[in-house]
């Protein structure tokens, strides 16, 4: 029934979440669970990779808002990478680029984490 899934990958210290399908009010809890799991495993550096994310609703965006504060307080961040243009537009309309690092590729996101670790503060901190 659910046409949404989250895949877990680790790239060094960074936890990559591969989103696939449509993230809406019904599937939002799956992303919540995924982020929760990452945090429980002390992975606070999270890259959400949206190459295969077809659609996101406002409830889906809410998931990022729900966790970002806690993640940053624990010294990590959620960075968003590889969004398709239509999905990016939804993030952009709400002003998410002002709150999150949204980059084109996963590698850029991981690179950003490296820069953060080297003392360059996150853009919105």
């Amino acid at each position: 029934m659910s046409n949404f899934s989250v895949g877990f990958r680790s790239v060094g210290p960074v936890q990559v979440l591969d989103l696939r399908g449509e993230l809406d009010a019904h599937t939002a809890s799956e992303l919540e669970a995924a982020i929760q799991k990452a945090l429980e495993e002390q992975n606070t550096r999270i890259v959400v990779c949206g190459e295969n994310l077809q659609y996101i609703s406002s409830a889906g965006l809410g998931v990022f808002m729900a966790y970002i504060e806690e993640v940053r307080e624990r010294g990590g961040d959620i960075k968003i990478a590889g969004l398709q243009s239509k999905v990016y537009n939804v993030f952009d309309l709400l002003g998410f680029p002002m709150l999150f690092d949204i980059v084109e590729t996963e590698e850029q996101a991981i690179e950003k984490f490296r820069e953060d670790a080297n003392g360059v503060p996150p853009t919105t901190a």
Partner: protein
Amino acid sequence: MPAKLIARSSEGARFLLLQTRGHFLFVLALWAMLYLIGLGYHLFVWSTGALTSPLLEVVYNAIVLFDYALLWLLIASLVERHRAAPTKAFWHTVLIGLLLLGAGLLIARVGRVTNIVDNPTIDLLGFEYETGVPLTPVTVLKMNLLSLMQVGFAFLLLARFRHLVLFKRTRRSQRNWYAMLALMIVTSLTTFTMTAAEEGIGEWRIPTVIVLVPAVLLMVVNAFRLSWIVFLSFRQKLALIGLTLVLLAMLAGGQVLGHGFFLMDATDYLYHYSYPLAVFTEQAFVFSILYGTTALLSLLFHLPTTGDFQQKVGEMAAIQSLTNLVSKVFDSEQLVSTIVASPVEAGSAQMAWLALTDLQSGSLRPRVVATHGVDPARLAALVDTCALYEDLGTRSGPLVLDEAPADHRVEARPGEGLGSLVGLPLVARDEMLGALFIAKEVTHGFEQDDLGALTAFAAQAALALDNARLFEEQLEKERLTRELDIARAVQRKLLPQRVPSIDGVTLAASSVSAQEVGGDYYDFVRLDEDRLALIVADVSGKGTSAAFYMAEMQGIFHSISHLARTPREFLTHANRALAASLERNVFISVIYGILDVRREELVLARAGHCPAAVIHLDGEARYLRTQGLGLGLDRSDLFARTLVEERLTLQPGDVFVLYTDGVVESRNARGEEYGYNRLLEALRRHRHEDAPDLHRALLADLHRFLGHDAYDDDMTLMVLKWHGIRLASAASAHPQQPEKPADEPAMVPEKP
């Protein structure tokens, strides 16, 4: 007539019965007449002093047998009409037997022939020894009367015993009974041509004996049909033992002392009267003695167990009646207390308690919801119900602890009132709803039949609990539906009931919710003569929580819009006001504008909302995508720092379209989104129309694209058209129906 009566008897299995009073009287009259003919025949024989022809004798025998068949009909239907419990039936039978015995003794004394020495050709009874011809009219009368009494009593016994033998009848038992009767009749008929004088009495021929053997075997079989005895009370059994003894004394006494059931010589008279009839009667008495003997023994053996049986029957009846009660109770509270009270009040146990899984909390941990015979606090100290419950969940049948104190889950020590325990899972629709526990003071208190009854009760209780639960769920559902209807009505009131009328401007707006209530909001407020504030907002998510924030947004709009001079000021205040109440994962996207007709300008600010579309008269169209975060996303000053306003000078024919994402993100059956481009295209096509027509046309275009009327998301659309100040009141206020605006556009004719 008898043929008709036979035809009336159902299936041949039931015996011939006289259905109406008329039939009864007719048969009675016929019987009496034939009886008198028989009497007359004997008197005739006496008066001639010699036997008649053999042919006439055969005719006589046939008439007598038919006559007594009628007597059987009469007696059987009388007995059938006065069915009685075994004790009463026995009592009546014995009483009639005693009366007949007394009458028989009197009759026997009359006209007794004593002088055998004087006339050796006369036997004791008064018949000529060689021929069997009666010697006096008194002999004839005695013969007729005593025969009638004996045969009548034999028929009465058979008719009475028939009910007992066929108690709790089966096909087999019924067959045995009728086979026995048939064989008895056949046995009798084999002696059809015999007479007392020729053959002597009781000296039967071989064919008779051949048929008699199976008849006797069936008598023995039928004599063991005694199940009615177990249902008698102790007193009834005692009474019956006495009555059976009397009956046996009457029947067997005669048999032992000589021929006849209770009278010396009476059977001899009967043999003289009709040989086959006498044979039948003797068989009937033999069966009666057999049956009386087995009944007596059975009564004696069952006497000690009567108490136990009565108690069991009482418990079963109590459980049964409570089972019925349980199925009538819908109130959960009352139901659970009835369920636990039932086994205790039925006398099956001293304690009972019911544990149910707590559906509200969602945990599978059971909770004791009702107890009987023990208070919950004490119960908790006695037994670990949770552990027992878990155990029950893993097995299919009941859990029986014969020595409860020895079990590790039972904390009660011996003597604390908990000797044995049964746990019964309550299963309905393959789901374990809970468990019923029943305890007795004594150890080994539950036998197999107890478990059977309790298991049946538990099944019924589970069904009742399930029904009650469904019933409550249904009520809850209906309540929720009503609540949501109210919420929907209230939310409708939060939206403007009319669009304001302002010179130079036409306005139209509508909103539909995907669910009963939604998170979309639009509104207008007149700030002063020249200025109008307008808002379209979308709370993230859908349904009830979104509806509450929508209501809060409405409050904020109506209070702050009057104070804020610019859209930026309004949104900044609103963001701050909402910060306290919004959930972390909830935000509100807003587009806010202030229209100033005197200065002919519109100032718009976008807080994370879908950009407003604007189109000029010449068809030049664009989206006003200014920078701005959604409300609730940021609680620092970032919101105010990043928010940008757009000030637009109005030219006649300018159209502004404000909407929520439900419009552009709606998808058709192929999964395609309506999208920004299609909206702009539709706007371009219809830009010359007034706001209300344009509004309808846009929705119609959207619906045509979607191909269905169902909404995945809340959908709001507001259209503002600037006609110029000189237009004056050309387009006055258009009352709008926010209830079902989506239906209207379909009826709007397409304009080229």
